[in-house]
């Protein structure tokens, strides 16, 4: 599937179609795996009248889970710091029974860190309610997802970088190497021409943060907007206005870094950008729309412009709406990026993803978020039934064959417009062209949560 994704991203028009049978088989195999190993999925399947076997169509009709399954724990457990109960719950949405020594844990961060020692990689996301979704993966599954992402994203990104020996080299590398070997080489060689500026925390397991942590090692130099790790407990405490003394302390620390030192942090990041550019480096800037807006507003206030070197890129992801209800307009951000950083529209990439999915979908120059063949998108109607045609308006659901450790048949709360026709950019298969939230759904994503901290 990963190879098919790479071929598809490299412009192989038949790759998507060829992968579909394999994808279906994997999805049916995953059903069996989940049924046997994931207690909560097992219960849902039984409730719906299914056993070990279910057809691809039946899964789409009856076994698509709401993303809320990843927050089906009791918030009281977190309030009380009962990480044994949380771990027990996490086991119920995971293919593996977790037996971990949990002594001395007093925060979400500590819990996640401890599970990491047991090769369990937990990422989380939050919405307006401040209730976190936790998604567990084994380290192997996490690495698999990383490989899949590199395989589908690298050709698309390199396609935008028309110049430079290294770009050409990389492009031929992407086509000639198997994804795993490419990953290894990329890991060793990195991207020496590039520096990276991440509009986020140095470390963290929340949405964009997790991706930043993954991307950072590829760059020769990195700068983070906040040179500290993001604290899950601190964030939760800030949203819910409660928590233990330790959590409140973490919340204060977070507040200081994000609110009180905001200008200082943005200025430091801008300074890094300027220095890297002077040194002739290309830059990758990655963050949520809300943070880019703040950075560019700071540049406007200080009357600073830093025309980036050719080949530089901006990657935007994490939703356009903040929890405070403010919507960042794409066009105005594009104009500001052009004005302050000298970036053309086609060097501004935008990604669509969620913590429950193992793939990042990139927006092409025609405004489509192309879905790689490794994902089976399922457009759902308001009654949560799959729409037969894979196009039109509906709720975005997906079956992710690479979700080997947790249930990967998920319905999000995103209301999307899906198209399924060849795109002028050269990519084929289904794509999303418009993303909104279902009425009544909480705002989610890094743009939202980070905006809320500053509010």
């Amino acid at each position, binding site marked *: 599937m990963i190879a098919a994704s790479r071929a598809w991203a490299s412009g192989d028009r038949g790759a998507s179609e060829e992968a579909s049978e394999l994808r279906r088989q994997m999805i049916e195999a995953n059903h069996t795996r989940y049924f046997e190993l994931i207690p*909560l999925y097992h*219960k*849902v399947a039984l*409730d*719906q009248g299914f056993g070990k076997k279910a057809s691809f169509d039946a899964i789409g009709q009856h*076994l*698509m*889970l*709401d*993303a*809320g*399954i990843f*927050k*089906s724990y*009791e*918030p*009281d457990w977190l309030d009380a710091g009962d990480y044994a109960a949380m771990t027990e719950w996490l086991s*119920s949405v995971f293919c593996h029974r977790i037996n971990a020594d949990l002594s001395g844990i007093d925060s979400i961060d500590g819990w996640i860190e401890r599970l990491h020692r047991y090769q369990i990689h937990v990422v989380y996301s939050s919405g307006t*309610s401040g209730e976190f979704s936790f998604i567990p993966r084994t380290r192997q599954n996490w690495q698999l997802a990383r490989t899949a992402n590199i395989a589908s994203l690298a050709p698309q990104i390199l396609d935008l970088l028309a110049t430079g020996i290294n770009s050409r080299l990389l492009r031929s590398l992407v086509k000639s190497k198997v994804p795993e070997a490419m990953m290894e080489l990329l890991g060793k060689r990195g991207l020496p021409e590039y520096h990276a500026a991440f509009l986020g925390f140095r470390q963290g397991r929340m949405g964009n943060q997790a991706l930043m942590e993954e991307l950072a090692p590829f760059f020769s130099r990195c700068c983070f907007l906040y040179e500290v790790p993001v604290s899950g407990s601190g964030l939760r405490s800030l949203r819910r206005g409660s928590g233990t003394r330790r959590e409140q302390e973490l919340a204060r620390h977070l507040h200081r870094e994000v609110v009180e030192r905001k200008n200082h942090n943005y200025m430091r990041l801008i300074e890094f950008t300027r220095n890297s550019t002077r040194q002739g480096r290309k830059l990758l800037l990655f963050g949520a729309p809300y943070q880019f807006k703040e950075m560019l507003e700071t540049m406007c206030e200080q009357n600073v412009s830093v025309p980036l070197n050719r080949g530089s890129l901006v990657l935007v992801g994490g939703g356009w709406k903040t929890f405070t209800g403010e919507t960042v307009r794409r066009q105005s951000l594009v104009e500001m990026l052009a004005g302050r950083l000298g970036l053309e529209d086609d060097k501004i990439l935008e990604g669509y993803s969620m913590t429950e999915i193992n793939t990042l979908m990139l927006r092409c120059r025609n405004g489509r978020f192309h879905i790689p063949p490794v994902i089976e998108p399922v457009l*759902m*109607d*308001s*009654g*949560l039934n799959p729409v037969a045609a894979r196009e039109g*308006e509906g709720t975005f659901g997906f079956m992710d064959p690479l979700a080997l450790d947790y249930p990967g048949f998920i*319905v999000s709360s995103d209301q999307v417009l899906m198209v399924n026709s060849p795109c002028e950019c050269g990519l084929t298969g289904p794509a999303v062209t418009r993303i909104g939230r279902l*009425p009544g759904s909480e705002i989610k994503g890094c743009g939202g949560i980070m905006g809320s901290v500053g509010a």
Partner: protein
Amino acid sequence: MEKTCRQHGLLVNQDGVIRIPFMIKGRLVLPPAIGREEAREAFAGAGGETVSVTAAGYQLLREAVIERPGMRYTGEFIYQVMPDLDPVELIETDNGRLAGELYQLKAEEIISYIECIVRFLKKHTRFLAGIIELMRSTFPYPDRFLDDWLASSYANLKPSSARQMLDSELAYRGLPGSRYLDGWVEIPEATSTGWPPPRCQTISPVGSDGAPGKTYVRAMPVRQLHITAGNAPDVPLISTLRAVLTKSAAVIKLPYGAVIPGILFALAAAAGAPEHPITRNLSLVYWPGGDEKTESQLFKPGAFDRIVVWGSPRTVASVQSRAPFTRTVCLNPRYGISLIGREASDSRLEEVAGRASTDVMIYNQKACTSSLVHFFEGTREQACEYARVLGTALKKWDEAAPGLADPVISGRVKRMRRGRYAAADWYTNTRQGEFASGVVVVRGGFDITEHPMCRLVVVKPVEHLEDALVDIDQFVSTAGVYPEERRIELRDRIASRGVSVVLPVGQCALVYPGIPHDGMLLLNQLVDWKTG
């Protein structure tokens, strides 16, 4: 009324389009005549969720047609055409005129006015029967609810009830409220204890006036803006009645889904008592909630003295934030609960579940008193047994008064069942394979904002009924308790947590004239108490 409607083609379904007038200060304002194609065209660019659009010279609503008795959406719409609205026209600025005319009316005259409206409506039963049929095509509640609606509306408008509301909700110092609404009432024992204190009175160069003068109090009418909600068709009528009883120069914003019931009152007033000061100061209109053009005018300081807002948390918060200088009476979104003691666990389970289902079914679980969560005292197994029996009771309701098969609701229940509440025990009734009603026994907490309010009961087992208290807050309007001894025992503790009504299970739909609403005597909030 009937003649006016016939003459202008109002309140009649003409090829899927219904023309609805407004009443602005007693004057009927007619909408333009538009055809079905034009109406469809107006919604052409709008998303599927859009229910209202504004075009040049008119406003348009669309309501989904429901096939009966199947209670399913047909996919068709009925369009309601209404006039465009100039908000400035709605605002009354001539306080002098109000003080000299409307505010001088006596309680007797108000009650006669209401009598006149009711009499007028009753004279046109055949016309009203037609209106009921008109409403039926998009009415999301069971037929039985609609068939009883007119009778319950007449009960709300009974002269004796109106008198009781006035006399009890505005009562002061042992005197009936209507006295204070009629005019100034002397407060005999009132003596001055104010400023300056007696020893300082000689300091004043003019000295003291001697014996204190007579003191009078009156309940002075105010200009009211009511923003009503459509969760129950009675809401616009209740708001209108409150405005009329308090002699207000009032504007009633009718809600999507219940425009016609409100307009019926307007038509009866305009035809039955066109020159009455109440009619001439009453407006019943619609605009899309949140419409900046309209609301920026109406929420201006001084435009109204009171804003009464019913509705969703978003509506209430939005009005409060945009009208900070106008006193706002918020009828917040609240819900009902039931507390079932272990005494129900034996042979009474069926009887108690049957009674509890009545509280669940108040306005199809859409009213702010409808019971959404049941706390059951007992083990999880006992709670599951209660859930099973309650599910059977709800099934009887489904058969006798089938609810709307709404795909959105069905989708929400599926999400709960395959998501956050996947670990819970579910007992559901289905109709043609889709959710009709059900009970879910949760393991731990429940986020009430996720409740779909569609004949779904959340059961929480508790070891002791008192354990439920921690989950009770001011968002709970009504608590039904079984058995009676436990209700009496727990009543104060429940009420102290913010609950407005604590009644026996099965009786939570109780209303009587002058009943407190959300902890308030509402009419009392709709007047200014003056001393003079």
